[in-house]
């Protein structure tokens, strides 16, 4: 039996509601570049945030440690007890190759900064028993979940290989400045998020991107189906603790793509499935596909307004809900592909675009390394 | 909308139900030859409440007000429709507005006529002398007697009224006005 982290679901934390700005940029040749574009673009969409959260996901950030899982662990209120417990736990369950405090700029004034530490770890060979047959990834996910659920004031907000998530309370450019992203890091794929929570002061753990392993999600919207999604994921051992509906997207991506091996195109049709009326008009083969998906994965449909940018190594997907209640725009210039809440933000960092298009609701823009797959969505654009 | 069978075979009143249905179909085809419309009954849903009689009487009262008609008008309101009753079977029954009405042939005063336009069998109470020949000859027993006035009364399909009272007041929609 799956353990419940609370005696009653009544006590599950509330997610908060928010409006947001998102931006993602990827070099499809895999060339690494700095954070300037991402920072500038998100700054351009300042009205989409309110200074209560900002964050970045950067791929290709730790080439020197690319064999190791890079954990970014946040200790709220700089809680040393929590840090000791986490480190004890990591020591018991991993080989910790290297760890350090993530460098920050003390000159940047941010709200109640936690202590953020990074650990490069590698899972040990499994002992006989329950975990014997787990893959490394699953093993890591389990341990991350354990920390997030059980250790007060400690949150693992980045856990992939060669990936880093940086986030906090403040405008994204303040967070970037605090972590010195423009100076210290380079990556071939950057996603950015600017947050506008409406009902909580915002906390560091609640900022986007949200990540598990190398999956990161930035999200704009309010997922009305959150409760259904959350409870379905709980059945698959994903427990939401971070007070944000983006979390369910991240877990769902992990479940569907990593664990169940579904292609990204299918994933987008689970999140934003076609209407039954549309399915009725499809070919028999498509009908079977979409009917099966809707039947089986009904609890993972993301209902309500959302735009998400999901990224993992080599891939970045932009998707908006099936009735397109939130915006998304895509643009391309040479090898660079952009996804953004607003076209203006893309043009701000790249004025002479080759092309710019608006994908319809439920239709994913898939940006892949060394491919032109993102162009597939252009012919359906609105 | 509803295409099911009205009654299960073997239920004690099924024979009249099924044959009743076909009866009305027959009447319909027949009607296309002459009459424009009539009220037909579905005996399988006639609940024997006699409300058609009540409202028919109201329709033919002076005031058209049910309470006034029954409690305060001088002449007792009389229905032109009869509910035949032999429980559990009941069905309301009124002038069939025959294509070649026997009552018209039997009428000695010319009070009963078949309206060639509407197809209705009409009764002119000013001409009626109350000889009751029509009562004797109507094979359906649909011509009723007003003992007080000593003349006959029959269904006039609520001529001059907005609705056919028996139809519009049947609580179970057992009465239906069919037109060709």
């Amino acid at each position, binding site marked *: 039996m799956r353990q419940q982290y609370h005696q009653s679901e009544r006590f599950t934390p*509330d997610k908060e509601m928010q409006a947001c700005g998102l931006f993602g940029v990827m070099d499809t040749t895999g060339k690494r570049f700095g954070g300037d574009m991402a920072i500038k673009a998100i700054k351009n969409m300042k009205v989409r945030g309110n200074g209560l959260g900002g964050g970045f996901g950067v791929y290709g950030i730790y080439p020197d440690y690319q064999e190791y899982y890079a954990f970014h662990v946040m200790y709220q209120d700089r809680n040393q007890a929590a840090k000791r417990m986490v480190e004890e736990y990591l020591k018991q369950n991993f080989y910790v190759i290297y760890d350090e405090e993530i460098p920050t700029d003390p000159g940047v004034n941010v709200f109640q900064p936690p202590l953020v530490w990074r650990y490069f770890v590698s899972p040990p060979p499994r002992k006989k028993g329950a975990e014997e047959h787990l893959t490394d990834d699953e093993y890591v996910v389990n341990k991350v979940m354990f920390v997030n659920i059980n250790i007060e004031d400690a949150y693992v907000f980045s856990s992939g290989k060669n990936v880093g998530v940086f986030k906090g309370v403040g405008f994204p450019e303040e967070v970037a400045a605090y972590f010195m992203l423009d100076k210290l890091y380079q990556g071939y794929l950057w996603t950015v998020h600017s947050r506008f929570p409406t009902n909580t002061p915002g906390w560091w753990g609640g900022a986007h991107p949200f990540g598990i392993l190398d999956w990161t999600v930035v999200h704009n919207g309010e997922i009305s189906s959150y409760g259904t999604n959350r409870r379905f994921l709980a059945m698959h051992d994903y427990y939401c603790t971070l007070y944000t509906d983006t979390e369910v997207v991240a877990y769902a991506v992990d479940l569907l793509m990593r664990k169940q091996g579904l292609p990204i195109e299918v994933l987008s049709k689970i999140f934003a499935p076609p209407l039954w009326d549309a399915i009725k008009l499809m070919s028999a083969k498509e009908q079977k596909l979409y009917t099966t998906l809707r*039947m089986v994965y009904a609890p993972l449909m993301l209902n309500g307004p959302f735009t998400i940018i999901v990224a993992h190594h080599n891939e970045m997907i932009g998707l908006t809900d099936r009735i397109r209640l939130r915006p998304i725009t895509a643009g391309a210039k040479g090898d660079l592909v952009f996804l953004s809440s607003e076209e203006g933000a893309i043009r701000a960092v790249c004025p002479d675009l080759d092309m710019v298009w608006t994908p319809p609701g439920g239709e994913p823009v898939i940006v892949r390394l060394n491919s032109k797959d993102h162009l597939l969505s252009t012919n359906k654009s609105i | 909308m509803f*295409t099911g069978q009205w009654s*299960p075979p*073997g239920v004690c009143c099924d024979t009249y139900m099924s044959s009743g249905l076909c009866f009305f179909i027959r009447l319909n085809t027949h009607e296309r030859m002459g009459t424009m419309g009539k009220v037909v009954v579905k005996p399988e849903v006639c609940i024997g*409440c006699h409300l058609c009689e009540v409202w028919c009487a109201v329709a033919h009262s002076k005031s058209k007000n049910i309470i006034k008609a029954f409690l305060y008008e001088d002449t007792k309101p009389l229905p032109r429709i009869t509910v035949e009753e032999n429980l559990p079977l009941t069905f309301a029954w009124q002038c069939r507005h025959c294509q070649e009405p026997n009552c018209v042939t039997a009428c000695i005063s010319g009070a009963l006529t078949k309206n060639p336009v509407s197809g209705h069998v009409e009764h002119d109470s000013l001409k009626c002398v109350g000889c009751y020949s029509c009562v004797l000859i109507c094979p359906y027993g649909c011509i009723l007697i007003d003992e007080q006035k000593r003349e006959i009364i029959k269904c006039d399909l609520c001529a001059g009224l907005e609705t056919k009272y028996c139809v519009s007041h049947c609580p179970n929609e057992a009465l239906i006005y069919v037109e060709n």
Partner: protein
Amino acid sequence: MYSFQLPEFMIERAADRCIRCRVCERQCANQVYSYDAELDRMFIEEKNCVGCQRCVVLCPTLALNVRPRTSDYRPNASWTRDKMQNLKKQAETGGVILTGSGNDKPCRIYWDHLVLNASQVTNPSIDPLREPMELKTYLGRKPDAVKITRCADGFDVETESFPNVAIPTPLVFSAMSYGAISYQAYLSLAAAAKELGTLFNTGEGGLPEHMRREFGGNAIVQCASGRFGVDADYLNNSQIVEIKIGQGAKPGIGGHLPGEKVLANISETRMIPIGTDALSPAPQHDIYSIEDLSMLIYALKEATNYAKPVSVKIAAVHNVAAIASGIVRAGADIVAIDGFRGGTGAAPQATRDNVGIPLELALAAVDKRLREEGIRNKCSIMAAGGIRCSADAIKAIALGADGVYVGTAALIAMGCTLCQKCYTGKCNWGITTQDPFLIKRLNPELTTQRLVNLMRAWSHEIQEMLGGMGINAIESLRGNRDHLRGIGLEDWELNVLGVKGAGE
């Protein structure tokens, strides 16, 4: 024996309105009214009145008023009127007090203590009149995952899915057997289900031969402890096969259709001789354990070529969650939970009012338990027993149900006034009777329309409420307890329901 019971109802007749049309007399199967030609007056025998209100509704001058009699015993919080009346009745008869319909005692109705959410500002509410609003629901077992492979022209689905039944709205008519209800009522349910594209449940009385082809596509056929009317053709002319273990109104006991109601067609449908009592034993005598249930489930699957989902219906009792879990593991594709406010044609009053637990708590517990065990997707949950309105239905879905069974509400739509005299066989509304005079009071054409209207109205309301929550497909509300809040509930109740208190 002279009865010391207080008459239940009083009847007032407005003398200045009564036109002596005698409609009341003809419409009353309980001989309350009689006409005296000599005096031109109606007489009333109030003792016989069951308060079904048929006469009140049919009276063309609205001259009648039937209401509970005001004369009462000295108020006594312990010895209430109900209790005293029952005592006197039993003293006079020496028997079990029978009753019909569902529990009428003031037990907490949790639906009324749950409120729904709506979108404001941060996400838009959706207008179902202008935008799609999907209520389509699949009932049946779902696989844990779907394996999909890329192929030249798209994707291939490799996972074999389990049989599922699609219904356009999550509302399904409850089990009401032919025999317990009249053919007209039964037919109306079937015809309404057919028109709506949803399902009706045959109950344990079988499905008449001549209805099988036409209505089998909308039937949930029940296989209950009496095994009435069960044969291969019956099982195969259906969408879902349901094993009835228990009924919310009378958990732990069986049923009894008196011989007088077993007329020719009922006898044929139930496959028992005319005039014999149809006795449904309390347990199914081939199911004394969960393994036995599993055997029956697979026997039925075998009989239907594994083409139909098999449902198991249980009454909501104390350890319902564990039982439901066992049922799913035994192979059931659907678990139907019947709460203790569910209706019945006949049940001992003591059982009806005192056995079982409310549907809301049972449903919440079952849903939670199945999720904890990771098997919630292996079955659909049907919630039954006291769903009174669309809001109850949508709250049930938010608590975790896939669909709801609508029983008493459908009867009320047909005309039922909950006089609770179903067991007498003299239903003045033509529903729970086989009297050939009384059954005609249901015109299947009209009744079907009433049922269709009701379901459409509810579906529209569900759509409205879903839209208000910013959800455009019912599956996104299923088990979405975040959209529920409790009001006026104790801590433990909120815990069981798994919902926060309002404002939390």
